[in-house]
C-alpha cells in the first residue's frame, strides 16, 4: 500500500516519505465528503503505525509471507517459567534503582528479539525458518507486555474497564 520493498529492515524516513506522498491526496481537507478517500486515509494511517512498530511490522510481514499464524503458539522450552519468575522478581523489586535495572533488562531483551527476527527474515526461505520466526514473535510478545506493565502508571483496570 505504501509501495515499499517487502522486508523487515525499513528506513523510517522512507516510510515517512512514502506516507506523505500518498496521504496528501486523501487528506480530509482535500477530499472532504469522499468516503473512499476517507477509507484510504485510514488504511494509510494504519499501515504507517504498523510499519513504525517493529513487533507489529514483523507480525504483518510474517502474515504477508504466508508464515505460521497465531494458532501456532510455540515457545522456546522453559520460556513461560522464566517469564513467570522474572515477573515475580519485578513484582518484588523495591525502589527506583531496582526498577531501572529491570527496565534496562527488558529493553535489552527487546533489542535481542528485534535483531533475531531481522536475521531470521533475511534467510526466510531456509527450511524451518518461518516456524522459528513465529516462535520468536510469540516470545517477543511476552517481553513487550512486560515492558508495558513495567510502566509505573500501568493499571490493568484502565486497560480493561474504561
Amino acid at each position, binding site marked *: 500500500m505504501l509501495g515499499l520493498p517487502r522486508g523487515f529492515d525499513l528506513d523510517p524516513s522512507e516510510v515517512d516519505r512514502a506516507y506523505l506522498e500518498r496521504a496528501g491526496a486523501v487528506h480530509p481537507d482535500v477530499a472532504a465528503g469522499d468516503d473512499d478517500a476517507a477509507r484510504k486515509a485510514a488504511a494509510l494511517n494504519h499501515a504507517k503505525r504498523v510499519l513504525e512498530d517493529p513487533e507489529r511490522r514483523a507480525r504483518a510481514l510474517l502474515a504477508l509471507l504466508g508464515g505460521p499464524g497465531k494458532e501456532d503458539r510455540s515457545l522456546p522450552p522453559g520460556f513461560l517459567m522464566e517469564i*513467570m519468575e522474572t515477573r515475580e522478581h519485578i513484582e518484588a523489586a523495591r525502589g527506583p534503582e531496582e526498577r531501572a535495572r529491570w527496565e534496562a533488562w527488558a529493553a535489552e531483551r527487546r533489542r535481542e528479539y528485534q535483531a533475531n527476527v531481522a536475521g531470521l527474515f533475511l534467510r526466510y526461505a531456509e527450511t524451518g525458518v518461518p516456524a522459528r520466526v513465529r516462535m520468536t514473535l510469540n516470545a517477543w510478545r*511476552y*517481553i513487550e*507486555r512486560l515492558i508495558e506493565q513495567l510502566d509505573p502508571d500501568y493499571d*490493568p483496570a484502565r486497560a480493561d*474497564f474504561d
Partner: protein
Amino acid sequence: MAYGQKIIDHYENPRNVGNFGTQADVKGRRDIGVGLVGAPECGDVMQLQIKVNPGTGVIEDAKFKCFGCGSAIASSSLATEWLKGKSLDEGLSIKNTQIVEELSLPPVKIHCSVLAEDAIRAAINDYRTKNGMEARERTAASAH
C-alpha cells in the same frame, strides 16, 4: 465499556492470590498440581496451583498468580473459587463459557477465560501425571 459488578469485584479484590511455593518448591510435591499458561496474543501469563487431598481426590485449596489484564485476573480469581471443594473430574468440567457468563466478559476478552480454563486443565493434569494417572485432553464440548 460497561463491565459488570462481579468482574470489577474479582479484579479489585482478587481471591486466593499467591502459591504454595515456587515452581522448584512444589515440583516434588505430589499433592500440588501446577498449571502455567500464557496467551501469545497478548503476552499475559497465569499460574494456577491446586492442593488436592490424596485420600478423597478433592481440591482443597487453589491459588493463582496472573500478570495480565483485569479480565485475566478476574477469570483466574473466579477459577480458584470454583475449584475449591470440587473433585478433579468436576474441575475438568469447568468451561471457559461459564466464566464468560459469570463475569459477563465482552467478546474481545473471551481469550482471558480460555486462558483460565487452560490453566485449570494444566494444573489438574499436572496433579494427575504426578500421581500416575494419564493426562486428560480437553473434552469435545469445550468451547474455543
